[in-house]
C-alpha cells in the first residue's frame, strides 16, 4: 500500500515536471504558430475589412478567385523553378565541399569559416551587395566580363539569378551539417574500399552517401521547405511595380505579401498562404514516403 502511493507520487511528480519543462515551448508554439495558423485559415474564408475590423464571411469565394488567377499559377511555377534549382545545387555543392574539407588539408578552419560566412551576414546586406553585382549598367559582373545581361530584370533568367543568391547563402549551413554527419563515418570503410581498388567517386557514391543519408534527408527536407517560402531576396533585390521580370519571378510568399500588406486584402493573402501550406505538406509527405527507398538508419 505504502509502496504504491510512493510510486504514484513519483509518477505525478514526473508528470508535473515534464509539463513544466515543455511549457515554455508549448506556449511559444501556441502563441506564435498554432493560433496564427488557425486565424489564417479562418481569414481565408472572409473578406477582411480595413485594419482587421469588420470581416465578412464569404465562404469559398477567395478560393474560387484563386483558382482562376493567372498570377497565382505563374507564381507556383516560379516557386517550383526556384526550388528545383536552389535545393539540389546548394545540397550537392555543400556535400562536395564537406567531403573535401573533411580531409587533413592546410587552412581547413579558414576554408570552413569562409564558406560559413554567408550564414552570419544579415540577409538585407547580402541582398544589397548582390543587387549591385547584378546591376545591368554599373554592376561588377557585367563590367568585369564586359556583358550586357539584365540578370534581375530579364524575365527568362531573373528567377535563376535569385536562386544563385539562395545557393550561395545556403552552402555554408548545409556544409556544416554534412561535416557533422561525416564525423560519424568510420575511417576503416574507406581504407577497406581503398584496398579493394575503389576510386574516390566509387567510395563517395557507395560509402559516404549511404552513411550520411539520414543527414542528407534532413537537409533536403528542410531546405525544400525553406526554398518554397523564398521571399526576402526577391523583395530586396527586385524593385516592385517597375521590374519587367517580376511576374515571372515572384514567389507565392511574395504574392501573399503583395495581397496582404500592399493591397491590404488579408483574406486573399491568407488563401494564397493556405495553398502554399498544402503544397509544402504534400511535397514533404512524398519525401517522407520516398525516404524508405534510400535513407539508411543504422
Amino acid at each position, binding site marked *: 500500500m505504502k509502496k504504491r502511493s510512493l510510486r504514484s507520487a513519483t509518477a505525478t511528480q514526473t508528470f508535473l515536471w515534464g509539463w513544466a519543462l515543455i511549457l515554455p515551448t508549448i506556449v511559444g508554439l501556441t502563441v506564435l504558430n498554432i493560433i496564427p495558423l488557425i486565424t489564417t485559415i479562418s481569414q481565408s474564408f472572409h473578406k477582411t475589412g480595413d485594419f482587421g475590423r469588420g470581416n465578412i464571411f464569404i465562404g469559398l469565394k477567395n478560393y474560387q478567385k484563386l483558382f482562376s488567377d493567372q498570377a497565382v499559377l505563374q507564381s507556383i511555377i516560379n516557386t517550383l523553378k526556384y526550388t528545383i534549382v536552389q535545393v539540389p545545387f546548394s545540397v550537392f555543392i555543400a556535400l562536395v565541399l564537406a567531403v573535401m574539407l573533411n580531409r587533413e588539408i592546410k587552412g581547413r578552419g579558414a576554408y570552413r569559416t569562409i564558406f560559413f560566412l554567408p550564414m552570419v551576414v544579415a540577409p538585407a546586406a547580402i541582398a544589397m551587395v548582390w543587387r549591385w553585382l547584378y546591376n*545591368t549598367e554599373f554592376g561588377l559582373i557585367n563590367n568585369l566580363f564586359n556583358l550586357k545581361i539584365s540578370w534581375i530584370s530579364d524575365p527568362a533568367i531573373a528567377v535563376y539569378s535569385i536562386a544563385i543568391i539562395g545557393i550561395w547563402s545556403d552552402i555554408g549551413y548545409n556544409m556544416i551539417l554534412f561535416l557533422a554527419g561525416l564525423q560519424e563515418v568510420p575511417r576503416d570503410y574507406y581504407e577497406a574500399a581503398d584496398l579493394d581498388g575503389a576510386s574516390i567517386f566509387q567510395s563517395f557514391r557507395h560509402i559516404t552517401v549511404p552513411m550520411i543519408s539520414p543527414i542528407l534527408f534532413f537537409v533536403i527536407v528542410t531546405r525544400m521547405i525553406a526554398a518554397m517560402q523564398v521571399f526576402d531576396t526577391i523583395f530586396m533585390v527586385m524593385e516592385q*511595380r*517597375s521590374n519587367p521580370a517580376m511576374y515571372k519571378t515572384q514567389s507565392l510568399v511574395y504574392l501573399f505579401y503583395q495581397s496582404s500588406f500592399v493591397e491590404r486584402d488579408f483574406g486573399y493573402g491568407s488563401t494564397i498562404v493556405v495553398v502554399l501550406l498544402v503544397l509544402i505538406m504534400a511535397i514533404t509527405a512524398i519525401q517522407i514516403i520516398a525516404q524508405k527507398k534510400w535513407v539508411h538508419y543504422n
Partner: protein
Amino acid sequence: MKKRILSLLLVALFVSALLFASGDAEKAKAASASKPLSVMIWDSNQEPGIRKIIDDFTAKTGITAEIQVVDWNNYWTLLSAGAQGGSLPDVFWMHSNESQRYMSNDLLLDVTDRIAKSAIIDPENYPEDIWSLYTYNKKYYAVPKDVDTIALWYNRALFDQAGVAYPTDDWTWEDLYAAAKKITRADGSVYGFANVNSNNQAGWYNLIYGNNGYVLSEDKKKSGMDLPATIEAMQWMEKMINENLMPPQAVMTESSEDVLLQSGKIAMTMQGSWMLPAFRDNEYTLKNCDIAMLPKNSKTGRRPSIYNGLGWAIAKNSPRTDDAWKLVEYFGSEEGQLKQAQLGITMSAYKNTSEQWKNSVPQFNLQAYLNMQDDMVIRPFSRNTVKWENAVLDVMLKVWNKEMTMEAGCKEAARQMNAILAEE
C-alpha cells in the same frame, strides 16, 4: 536537491515579478515626462532637417522626440500593422494615397478643435487642396506639412556635348523630344530622357492633365485612362519608349531616375521638388545639373504640375496627444514652416514661404519649381488609391517593356481601375 531547485525557481519568480513590476511603474512615469515622442517618416533625405526643427522645438518646450525613418514601401506595412495592433507612433506623415482609409477608420486624432483654439495655425494660410486631403466628414485630421511641384532636371554637360541649347520655359513636349533625340547616343551610353513607369505623379500624370485628360473623374467613380485625350498624351511617351530615347525598362528599374541623372547616364528627367536634398548633396548634380519648367502642351498651352502635400498626423490612441499636438503645431507654424523652407528640406505648405526655399540652394534655378505653381492639379486619390494605382502601374509596365501598345495599355488600365473603383 529537489527542494533546492524548487526554492531556486521560487526566487527566480519573485525576482522577475519585482523587476517587471518596477519596470511597469517606471514606464508609466516616463511616459508622462522624459520618454521622447515617437515620430515616423519615410524620406531619409529630409531626416537631418526635420531633426533640426525638432531640436528647436525641444529647446523651446522641453519635450523631446525621436525620429524613425522607414522607407516608403515598408512605411505603410509597418503603419498598418501598428494601427491594427494599437501601437502607432505618436506623430507621423500622412499621404493622400492612404489618408482616406486611416481617417474613416478613426485612427487619426481629430484636430479640428485644437486648430480652432490654436493661435498659430490658421487654415487660411495653407492651400485648400492640401486640407481637403486630410479632411473627413468636415473634420481635420492632419496639419499640412509641405507642397510639391514638378520640374524638369537636365544635365548641362550632356547638352553641351551634343551641342543642344538648354531647355527654356517656352519648351513644348515636341522640343523635349527633339532634344532627347539629338542627345541620345546609339551605343546606349547616354539617353536623352528617363521616366520610369512607376513615376506617375512626377512623371506621366503631368502629360495627361496637360492634354486636358485625366486619371480619375471628379466624383472618383470612373477612370479617365481610356479617354482619347489621355491616350493621345501618353502616345508621346510611347514614342520616347519605342525610339529608345529612354533607357530600357530593365535599366530604369535597377537604377532609379535620380541615380541615372547623378551618374551622367541621362540628360533629362522629371522630378518633384522633394528631391532637392538628394541632388544638392550629390557633387556631380550640384556641378552639372539645373532645373527648367516642364514643357508646355503645344495644343492646349497648358503646363500643369501634379501636386500633393503631406500632412503631420497624430495617432488617436497616443498616450500623449497634448504633447504630440504641440509638436505638430510647431511643425505647422509659420516658424516651423519657414525653417523647413530655409533648410531646403522641402517647399512648405505655409503661404509665402517658398521664397525662402528658393534661396536655399543658389546653384539651382529653383524659381522653375515656384513658377510651376501657376497651374496645379492635386494628385488623383480615392479611398483605395493604392489598389488601382498599382493595377495601372502593372499594366503600364507592359507598355514600357514594349509588350503592349500604349492605346491597348491605357484601355486595359481603365478597365481594371473601373473594376476596383466599383468595389469602393
